[in-house]
């Protein structure tokens, strides 16, 4: 029995080390020139557009009614034209001469089942759609319960992509992703790969490559090694540090580009010490974001001011940034009643101690948390860090007390600033700060009803200014993505919102 325990122990240690060594022992595979392999962190887990449509949209097997252009605006997709009939009714005119991959014509009648399915699903619960109807041969009419100007933006989401009626079983489940895109579904292996081939009947210019293979590879390092070993032609979302090393390899190219995604702190407004705005402001003044960007992010990405990065989207309002001013942070804390006591601070006999919760599926977050910890300690916070599962954080933060959560998310994954409602609307927010502000709610609701872009911008700018002052969320940094490709890959243009990789343009 002793022996067994010891062997097990030794074996564990040896396996750990040899496992690491194994990373370097991958051989390269010969590659077929007409096949393009792309590796991404997300594994294909379903062929149902309602669950996994965004992924099938990214590789352009499925196409939605409307698409997102490279400048982040809503553009034609399967629908060439869309307009508001009255403030609760929208009409979409479908493109002529489009067929699904199985040969079925794309008409209002054949698109309708998919749309109904999507808007009825729980993922679309926040979109107040009352009815989807086929009002003419090529006209789709969508009725909303209330005036809802973000509707076109929601029609770009992968979940709304139509599949052929033949792909939908009698029980309502989807058996094959038969879409309309430049690539058509060939086969897939749940959880790992998708193979798609060029669609010869595509209405647009079509794909330049014959076969597209999508691989879901969760681990950054593995994705990168596969690219270096020529097992991938494109590896998406690599660590920032990889940009330099890829650039030094003549056979590889690194594409870096900014995306509307942010890292931020979510404060619990319902419990001390962050119920006090002065303490939240102190945090924002204590954090040196320039330093974080320059060192940890390797200069890729930038320091955040508000929710939206102004160099990526036009929805960013002009805001007063929180500069790195440790002295100001200290005096704010003193004003809030937290008096310096040696290295720490005390109020009513209680020490100023907070915990930062974060998760490690975004590998940089715990490291950034450690830097923030040091910077907050410098002004007198006692900080501990808990690295947990993101789902656990969501659950615990929604149901109970916490101090602050370091989170990362897209701020514009459908191209409409109504996304702000997810952050700060008192009722519909999915972030858990507990922020409630009547003015903000009113602006958000009003902006949903207004059609005019400039009018809407005014409302969203007001919301951004208000939350910049109230600080339910502290914006830290914006993201830049690093995409590695073979050097001879041409025609690739990174898409800011990444709703589609547009690999049909790649040669």
């Amino acid at each position, binding site marked *: 029995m*002793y022996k067994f325990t010891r062997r097990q122990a030794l074996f564990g240690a040896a396996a*750990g080390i040899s496992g690491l060594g194994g*990373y370097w022992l991958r051989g390269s595979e010969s590659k077929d020139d007409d096949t393009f392999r792309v590796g991404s962190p997300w594994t294909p887990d379903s062929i149902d557009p309602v669950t996994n449509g965004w992924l099938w949209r990214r590789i352009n097997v499925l196409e939605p009614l409307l698409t997102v252009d490279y400048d982040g605006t809503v553009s034609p997709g399967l629908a060439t034209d869309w307009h508001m009939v009255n403030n609760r009714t929208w009409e979409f005119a479908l493109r002529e001469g489009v067929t699904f991959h199985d040969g079925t014509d794309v008409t209002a009648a054949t698109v309708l089942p998919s749309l109904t399915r999507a808007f009825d699903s729980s993922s679309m619960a926040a979109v107040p759609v009352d009815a989807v109807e086929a009002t003419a041969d090529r006209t789709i009419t969508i009725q909303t319960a209330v005036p809802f100007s973000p509707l076109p933006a929601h029609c770009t989401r992968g979940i709304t992509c139509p599949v052929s009626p033949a792909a939908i079983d009698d029980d309502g489940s989807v058996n094959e992703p038969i879409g309309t895109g430049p690539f058509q579904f060939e086969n897939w292996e749940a959880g790992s790969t998708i193979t798609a081939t060029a669609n010869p009947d595509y209405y647009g210019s079509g794909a330049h490559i014959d076969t597209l293979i999508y691989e879901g590879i969760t681990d950054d*390092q593995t994705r990168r090694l596969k690219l270096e070993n020529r097992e991938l032609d494109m590896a998406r979302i690599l660590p920032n540090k990889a940009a330099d*090393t890829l650039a030094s390899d003549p056979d590889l190219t690194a594409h870096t580009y900014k995306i509307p995604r942010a890292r931020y702190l979510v404060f619990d407004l319902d419990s001390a010490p962050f119920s006090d705005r002065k303490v939240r402001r102190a945090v924002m003044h204590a954090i040196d974001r320039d330093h974080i960007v320059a060192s940890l992010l390797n200069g890729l990405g930038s320091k955040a001011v508000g929710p939206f990065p102004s160099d990526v989207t036009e929805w960013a309002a002009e805001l007063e940034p929180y500069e790195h001013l440790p002295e100001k942070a200290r005096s704010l804390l003193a004003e809030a009643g937290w008096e310096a006591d040696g290295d720490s601070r005390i109020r009513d006999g209680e020490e100023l101690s907070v915990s930062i919760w974060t998760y*490690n599926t975004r590998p940089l977050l715990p490291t950034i948390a*450690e830097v923030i910890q040091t910077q907050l300690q410098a002004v007198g916070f006692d900080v501990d860090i*808990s690295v*947990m599962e993101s789902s656990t954080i969501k659950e615990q933060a929604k149901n109970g007390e916490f101090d602050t959560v370091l989170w990362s998310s897209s701020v514009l994954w459908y191209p409409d600033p109504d996304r702000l409602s997810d952050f700060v609307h008192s009722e519909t927010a999915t972030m858990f700060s507990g922020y409630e502000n009547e003015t903000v709610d009113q602006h958000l609701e009003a902006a949903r009803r207004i059609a005019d872009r400039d009018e809407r911008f005014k409302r969203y700018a007001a919301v951004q200014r208000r939350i910049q002052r109230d600080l339910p969320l502290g914006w830290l940094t914006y993201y830049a993505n690093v995409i590695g490709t073979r050097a001879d890959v041409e025609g690739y243009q990174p898409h800011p919102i990444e709703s589609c990789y547009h690999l049909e343009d790649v040669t």
Partner: protein
Amino acid sequence: MSDRAANRRKRQADKRQGWTDGLTADRLGQFGIGVVLTLLVLAALGPVVSPYDPAEQDLSNRLESPSLSHPFGTDQLGRDVLTRLLHGARFSLGIAVAVTTVRLLVGTAVGLVAGYAGGWVDEALMRLVDTLLAFPGIVLALVIAGILGPSLVNVMLALAVVGWASYARLVRSSVLSLREREFVTTARLLGRSRMHIATRHLLPNVVAPVVVLATLDIGSVILGTAGLSFLGLGAQPPTPEWGTMLASGRNYLRQAWWLVNAPGLCIMVTVLGFNLLGDSLRDMLSPTQTAQMEEL
């Protein structure tokens, strides 16, 4: 040649054989002892001697490769890896000793009671032990640590909870064979209390195998702690725990191999040291040899 001379030669040959056996066993044992002692000294002195603070960040010196001023390089936040490893040794050794002690105390107590009391008490305790042993320890520890939430204390608790069963088993079986021995019967007939017999007559006789088991166990506790911390259930950053360091270094595998190799090697050498020490202790204190010594 007389029988006597032959016998003497045979005895000498036996003696030589035994002597060389002892030496090889000892050599590994000595190595084990050496490793463990070195570690103890390093853990005690290292943090005092090192010029760096394990939590002090220097973002302008991130991911520096090993050099004279940083023998094991620096990590993703510019902290000295060697200093962190030395502090980590304190955590690893401290936790391993603490957890093993708890396992040992609980397990021995349960084993003694079950073995000596017998009857339904024995039955109840042993079924509990069976249940624990039937479950893969690390999986159960994962579940417990997962439920309690990530922290080093919870990992210690989890590891202590799952590990005591083998001690109980070992002690109980020793007690079962000891309780029928004459010296126990004599003590009972002399009117000694059950408590007295258990602590004065039974306990001293089970110490040797328990100590051997404990030494071997330390290695597995170190691995367990590192494993759970690697999975994010144990020490939270910036605590310089080996498993946590291994996990965060993994993200920099291509740029900074020392971030993974250094804590990995530390874990391996430490576990190896304790296992070799345990092995040689077992050889020295094995029941057969003890029996032989009694007969002499």
